[in-house]
């Protein structure tokens, strides 16, 4: 954007701000007036206007500021915070350098400065109550809801070790070291004791989930590392709450009364708080799942239930003085699967979008307010020794803790966590608003040095978020570069390395995933039989095949994009597009439902169109391109490999992101891989089984419930094998599959239902049959084929014989194309 527009934006924000300050001044005046008015009149008739009760003439318009004051200020602040976020995103140079959280804090400084300048007092602070009750829950709910469960639970041991032991270590070490330094006189005179130091240590110990995600999103780390830090930041709340409350209680009790009994109570309270909080979360998750089972009739608001119940779980845990964050986390973690299965697709999308809006919005506000709160002379107490030592200890002990714990954990892992990852993990131990919130809720009567603690906490938070956030990316880059550069890998090594990862992933899958032991299998069985029966809608239960649901979702998006793209270009122009070129589909969710028409217009002949780039190059450009190619071949090859090798499970398949909720690149890859796999399997089986009729029964017309086809688990029902070479049957099977599922899943209504022409089988199959593992990108290449030599082996999914049928026949067409074209 041009600098002028940025500047004007900035001015607008400042203007709004100025308005805010003026109104706040008015507010202060009016509140004092009101005070005197009410004390004078003694009445509480607040609904009347500001001035005295008598009016002399009928007012046409009145200034009703105090009516709307609170909501107005709230809304205005929200607006300003989000505008700050917008501004932070505008400047791309700045964005690549600074992490967004840092920019938001800095904006907070500026805004705080303006407010302070107007009011000489910080009227808008981050009040702990507002923070804990209104800003934090949705972030944690979002985290829990989008948590990659499999990854989370398979790494739960390591996460718990870090969360519990790491946090305790941090708290104890920081507290005791500070106390030691205090005794050594490094901090001058303070009214503080060991217990208070421990309390302070415990509130600073916890890694903050909000800050961590904000920074880690920008630094791509492998998924194990990611989930460790992420999980740790969530689960350590259990420890933090306990430690905080225990030490708070100790401080009020006074040092003398602490004996073994109290300490034991403290330890017991840890277990109670942690497990109790989680239990509440699980209870609410069950409630939500049960509820969504029956809310099919109120699809519009069924999305809202999740938010309400999630919030209630937070508040309930808080009410019982259990760990509220754990409660919300587990609520989200446990309910996601059932809720996504039970609810209508649109509701699921609504929930996801809304979650992201709330979470992102709250996060923005938190960071801005963290900045605003700093500009307040009341709280600043400077004690060099205290502050600097705290910073030092927090950093050092984090590193020590992480390295030590990882060293222990590595002894039980085959693939040890490397040094670089450990460094990143230690460095990623950011403190954030939770620490500040806890500090601000200290009782100043008991804790005389509250302001000092607040100051220190703020400084630690700023240091970690801004400085560590800033330096994280360059650090990682420097470390990685440093590691790789000694021996630049040859092409074949690169290819092989990636191949190894894939092979290893495959072998893990074949031999049963690591962690696929008796417990997990038993749990899966238990879950499959009892829990899903209890918590899932019957139809949802039957359609739970994970892979196909992803496919369905992706196909839906592809279909929509295909349609919009075709509309944009007109169907004829679309013909010249080939599969090889990538038309950049923006993933939009609206669609127009005109698919059948476009299908019919497309020519299904064999187009031998060369892959061209999107823009039509002139002749000279082409030649130039070739020359360039020759020169840069070497660079290109490495670069190509770098860019385009499929990523394996091990590296970089980021599954959680606060800012992007839509399908990220790895799912595209997964789709692509899956399509090719199915296509090639089909080809190979087709060629292997040409003409062979297996001794499987030809079944009757499956007009019965298509849900039966999705019987999962058990042996494939041989009687359901599909006939061999019967398009009509196949087609109507698709039809019945479609009609059976009705409007539940796929909303495109296709009118080609009665057509016999095999060419059109593809179109309605693709549309109607929701399980097709291939995308409409292939459609325009389809030739009208006689489908006569399909294999009927249930190679696809042992528990989904229906889908294999149509997916066998449809990928055949692209495979045919492959054969002719490639």
């Amino acid at each position, binding site marked *: 954007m041009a600098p002028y527009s940025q500047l004007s934006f900035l001015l607008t924000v400042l203007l709004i701000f100025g308005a805010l300050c003026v109104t706040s001044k008015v507010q202060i005046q009016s509140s004092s007036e009101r005070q005197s008015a009410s004390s004078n009149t003694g009445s509480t008739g607040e609904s009347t206007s500001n001035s005295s009760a008598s009016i002399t003439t009928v007012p046409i318009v009145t200034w009703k500021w105090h009516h709307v004051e609170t909501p107005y200020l709230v809304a205005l602040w929200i607006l300003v915070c989000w505008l700050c976020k917008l501004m932070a995103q505008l400047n791309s140079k700045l964005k690549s350098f600074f992490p967004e959280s840092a920019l938001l804090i800095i904006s907070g400084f500026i805004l705080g400065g303006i407010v302070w300048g107007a009011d000489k007092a910080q009227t808008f602070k981050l009040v702990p109550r507002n923070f804990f009750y209104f800003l934090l829950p949705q972030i944690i709910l979002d985290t829990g809801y989008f948590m990659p469960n499999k990854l989370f639970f398979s790494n739960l041991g390591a996460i718990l070790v870090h969360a519990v032991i790491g946090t305790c270590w941090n708290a104890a070490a920081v507290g005791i070291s500070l106390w030691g330094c205090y005794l050594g006189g490094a901090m001058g005179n303070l009214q503080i004791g060991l217990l208070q130091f421990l309390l302070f240590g415990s509130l600073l110990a916890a890694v903050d989930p909000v800050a961590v995600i904000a920074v880690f999103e920008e630094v791509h780390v492998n998924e194990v590392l990611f989930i460790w830090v992420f999980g740790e930041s969530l689960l350590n709340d259990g420890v933090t709450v306990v430690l905080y409350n225990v030490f708070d209680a100790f401080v009020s009790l006074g040092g003398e009364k602490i004996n073994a009994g109290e300490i034991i109570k403290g330890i017991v309270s840890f277990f109670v708080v942690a497990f109790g909080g989680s239990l509440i979360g699980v209870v609410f998750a069950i409630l939500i799942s049960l509820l969504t089972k029956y809310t099919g009739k109120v699809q519009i608001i069924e999305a809202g239930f999740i938010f309400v119940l999630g919030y209630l779980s937070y508040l309930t845990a808080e009410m019982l003085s259990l760990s509220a964050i754990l409660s919300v986390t587990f609520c989200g973690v446990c309910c996601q699967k059932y809720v996504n299965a039970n609810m209508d697709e649109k509701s699921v999308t609504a929930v996801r979008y809304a979650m992201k809006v709330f979470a992102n919005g709250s996060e923005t506000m938190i960071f801005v307010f963290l900045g605003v709160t700093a500009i307040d002379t009341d709280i600043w107490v400077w004690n060099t020794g205290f502050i600097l030592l705290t910073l030092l200890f927090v950093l050092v002990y984090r590193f020590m803790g992480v390295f030590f714990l990882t060293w222990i954990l590595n002894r039980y892992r085959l693939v040890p966590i490397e040094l670089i990852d450990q460094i990143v993990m230690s460095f990623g131990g950011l403190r954030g608003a939770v620490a500040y919130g806890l500090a601000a809720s200290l009782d100043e009567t008991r804790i005389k040095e509250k302001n000092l603690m607040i100051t220190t906490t703020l400084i630690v938070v700023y240091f970690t978020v801004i400085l560590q956030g800033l330096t994280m990316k360059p650090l990682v880059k420097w470390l990685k570069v440093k590691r790789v550069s000694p021996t630049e890998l040859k092409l074949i090594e690169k290819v092989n*390395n990636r*191949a190894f990862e894939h092979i290893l992933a495959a072998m893990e899958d*074949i031999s049963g995933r690591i962690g696929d032991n008796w417990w997990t299998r038993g749990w899966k069985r238990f879950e499959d039989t009892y829990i899903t029966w209890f918590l899932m809608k019957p139809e949802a239960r039957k359609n739970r095949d994970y892979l196909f649901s992803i496919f369905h979702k992706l196909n839906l998006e592809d279909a929509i994009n295909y349609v919009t793209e075709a509309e944009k270009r007109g169907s004829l122009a679309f013909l010249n597009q080939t599969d090889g070129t990538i038309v950049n589909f923006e993933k939009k969710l609206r669609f127009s439902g005109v698919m059948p028409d476009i299908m019919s217009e497309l020519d299904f002949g064999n187009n031998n169109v060369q892959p061209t780039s999107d823009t039509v190059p002139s002749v000279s450009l082409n030649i130039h391109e070739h020359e360039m190619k020759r020169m840069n071949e070497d660079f290109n090859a490495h670069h190509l490999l770098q860019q*385009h090798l499929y990523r394996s499970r091990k590296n970089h398949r980021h599954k959680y992101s606060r800012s992007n909720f839509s399908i990220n690149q790895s799912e595209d890859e997964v789709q692509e891989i899956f399509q090719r796999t199915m296509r090639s399997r089909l080809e190979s089986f087709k060629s292997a089984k040409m003409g062979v009729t297996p001794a499987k029964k030809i079944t009757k017309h499956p007009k019965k419930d298509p849900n039966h086809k999705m019987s999962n688990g058990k042996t494939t029902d041989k009687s359901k094998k599909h006939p061999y070479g019967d398009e009509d049957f196949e087609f109507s099977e698709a039809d019945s599959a479609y009609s059976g599922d009705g409007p539940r899943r796929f909303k495109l209504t296709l009118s080609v239902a009665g057509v016999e022409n095999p060419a059109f089988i593809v179109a309605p199959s693709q549309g109607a049959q929701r399980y097709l593992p291939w995308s409409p990108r292939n459609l325009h290449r389809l030739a009208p084929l006689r489908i006569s030599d399909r294999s009927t082996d249930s190679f696809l999914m042992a528990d989904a014989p229906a889908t294999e049928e149509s997916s066998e026949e449809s990928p055949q067409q692209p495979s045919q194309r492959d054969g002719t074209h490639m």
Partner: protein
Amino acid sequence: MGSTNSTLSKIPNAGDLMQETGFSPAHIVRLYDRYKALDKDKKGHLCPQDFGAIKELAMNPISDRIIGAFFSSGQEVLDFPSFVRILAHFRPVDKNRPKDPNSPEHINSRSNKLKFIFQLYDQDKDGKISRQELLQVLRTMLEKQVTEEQLESIADRTIQEADLDRDDAISFDEFRKSMEKVNIEHKMSIRFLR
């Protein structure tokens, strides 16, 4: 698990298998359970479709080749010993076992691991990875948007780097030499039991 011994007795030739592959009894039992779990129709043996039913495998670009590696020489059935033998390639290398120069190499030796990989590339089993075969592998591992030209140039350069005797194909020795610096023992090992 206490049932190890009883299950072990059910597995035919368990002792020989352990000797040959170096798996412990617990491993063998675990793998046997997995074998049975994969064999959904209770046929007593595995066929390619059973592998196809593994959901995560379908998301692996080279899954077909890997399945093919299990069903070598065109067989359609896989019995338990063959299943274990293939998986044995991925057993972590025993650092403690004394090296006995006379005994045959363990299945999971570095050389055998490399041979396994080599066979994944070399589909026609002529002992060389031809340019065509390399192209196929690259094709499966690279995203669709990579064009044929780019693919061929990558394949050409790859062969150039590794091919020492200039026969436009990579033999097993050349392959092994190019993998000298790679930590195969680490990259080609998985834990079979926690």
